[in-house]
């Protein structure tokens, strides 16, 4: 039985990771083909760094992902704070489900409605399609995820701590920064991470609100399917996998070291 479950685990891993491994292996293929492997070479990586439009798309994607998830994290944290403080359970429930609707909504609905909204706004304000519309759209769809990851942290928090802090002379603002913020920080961090990855790989919404000034990577790759996707894209995807892997390892490594420290501190106390 144990053997069986181990085999099962490996099968799942194979299913999850074989496409990525194929991609990485063939990104080193000089022949630029998925069918035969000629020689190991970094040719497509060099080609990638000569491709200015791919690099600018990558840059745009990263800028957008960082800024939209940061913005969503700030707004979302305050929204979660407000939701937590609400007294009426009834209103709280309503607002909670209202914020969750954009998350349940199919992307295409969000995308089209955003586009219509911005087109309407164009006639009234000086809004232009481009970075601003992309930022607004991405922040909007990131928001519920941030709220979803921060709100439970507030719920888990021991209310007596905040009461004690206020009792001992903290102003509400001090209390927020000294007691609540450190406690919910892990929720904020995971909200930010979710927002970042969602924004990085969003295609459908970006498709509707993008402009020629601001093309992101998913749009760039999709449009290549009109003919054939360049092999330098394999190199790019492989690089992204490496970076994400590195980030994950770093986070885990740093996280575990932090925990060790805490344990030691507790032992000393």
């Amino acid at each position, binding site marked *: 039985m144990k053997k069986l479950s181990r085999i099962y685990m490996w099968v799942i891993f194979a299913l999850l990771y074989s496409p990525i491994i194929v991609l990485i292996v063939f990104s080193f293929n000089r*022949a*630029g*083909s*998925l*069918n035969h492997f000629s020689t190991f070479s970094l040719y497509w990586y060099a*080609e990638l760094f*000569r*491709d*200015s*439009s791919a690099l600018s798309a990558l840059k745009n994607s990263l800028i957008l992902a960082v800024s939209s998830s940061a913005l969503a994290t700030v*707004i979302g944290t*305050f929204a979660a704070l407000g939701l937590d403080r609400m007294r009426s359970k009834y209103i709280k429930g309503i607002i909670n489900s209202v914020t969750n609707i954009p998350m349940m909504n199919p992307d295409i609905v969000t995308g089209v409605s955003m*586009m219509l909204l*911005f*087109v309407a706004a*164009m006639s009234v*304000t*000086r*809004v*232009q*399609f*481009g*970075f*601003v519309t992309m*930022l*607004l759209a991405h922040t909007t769809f990131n928001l519920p995820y941030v709220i979803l990851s921060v709100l439970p942290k507030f719920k888990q928090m021991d209310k007596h701590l905040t009461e004690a802090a206020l009792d001992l002379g903290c102003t*509400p603002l001090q209390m927020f920064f000294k007691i609540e913020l450190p406690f919910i920080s892990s929720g904020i961090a995971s909200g930010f991470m979710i927002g970042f990855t969602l924004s990085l790989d969003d295609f459908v919404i970006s498709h*509707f*609100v993008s*402009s*020629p*000034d601001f*093309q992101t990577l998913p749009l*760039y790759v*999709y*449009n*290549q*399917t*009109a*003919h*054939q*996707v*360049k092999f*330098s894209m394999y190199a790019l995807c492989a690089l992204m996998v490496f970076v994400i892997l590195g980030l994950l390892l770093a986070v885990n490594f740093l996280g575990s070291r932090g925990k060790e420290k805490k344990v030691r501190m507790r032992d000393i106390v």
Partner: protein
Amino acid sequence: MKKTVSLLLIAALMLCACLGFTSCGDEAEGSGGTETLYVYNWGEYISDGSEDSLDVNAAFEDYCREVLGKNVKVNYSTYASNEDMYAKLSSGAVSYDVIIPSDYMIGLMADQNMLMEIDFENDVPNYEYIDDRFKGLYYDPDEKYSVPYTYGTVGIIYNTEIVPEDDEHIGSWSLMWDEDYSGNILQFNNSRDGFGTAQYYLGYSVNSDDPAEWQEALELLKEQKNVVQGYVMDEIFNKMKGGSAAVAAYYAGDFFTMYSDNDRLAFYHPDEGTNVFVDAMCIPTCCRNYELATEYINFMLSEEIAVANAEYICYASPNMLVVENEEYIECMEEIHPDAITILYDFDMDSMEFYHALPDETRNLMNSLWEELKIESAIGTDIYIICVAIIAVLLALLLRRIIIKRRRQYYFDKFMRESEAVK
């Protein structure tokens, strides 16, 4: 306190938004002498500097700087289909200066006044190099809106390792219905091209508005479904290169890309006739810089640039300067010995353009296509499976509810009894 904070927050948000909008607006209106030209083209449809080719957009910027004395930035973006491009433009969300749609889309857009008239004599002098066969075609009979960029044909690609050269079906669409290659045939995964293969085979017009003809084409496609491996688009490249499929209909220009990876592949134009298409440069009415746009179109027609594009894309060029260019012919023959024959030597009269279909016919085509795709062996099974899953979920839910009720009942009973004891 709370109210002031939230008011402040709202004010900050509004301010951010306003700042964002205005700064963006300023940027779009041109910053200090640099003009921006917005070009919207198919993906992978221009020589872009990769693999030692010429970077056409950079060359245009250089040309403007050195010859015209202007600082120009080409903002180049891409789309994956005519319909994507059309949707983007007609939403009014963005504006472009040069677009490169296909024939039927040009006709459609011209009818809807979405294209600007171009003064060829004064603004695009290089238009004279365009082959006369490609002037005044059906989508632009008065030569007002479009400058042909590339053209191409649909033909059948087959693997000579699997399909012997003396197969009697070679030269005809019937190869795609041949049961000998069952499970090795690839069909287009888009309704127009998919129906096209059947209509050409039947000898019908692809622009027919007779529902009976479409119905007949559908029957033929249904028959083909048993021998088809799959309905695919760009996966065709890898399948044909790797030999996991033997017969596929695709564009002549893309055949060379596949051939360079697998020299067992061969190509022919079916005798019954096939599709020919032209992609042409146009200026949409939302264009903000007509002068620069025509300059760009003219530049694209100049010899060096047109040759670079033709060599990169591998589609046929309607530009006489390219067709007669020695270096180009040599380059294409290096890719495939018969490249020039395949690309240029065919009978235009046996070919048929796609026209924009009337709404009624288009809806019919789409619903028939759905019918083809849905009607399959797993078609009905999938509904049964879905219903079964939903039924199981409902049963589980019901069971939980019943158990909960029962528990509640015993709990209440216990409470009542213990109270009675008290």
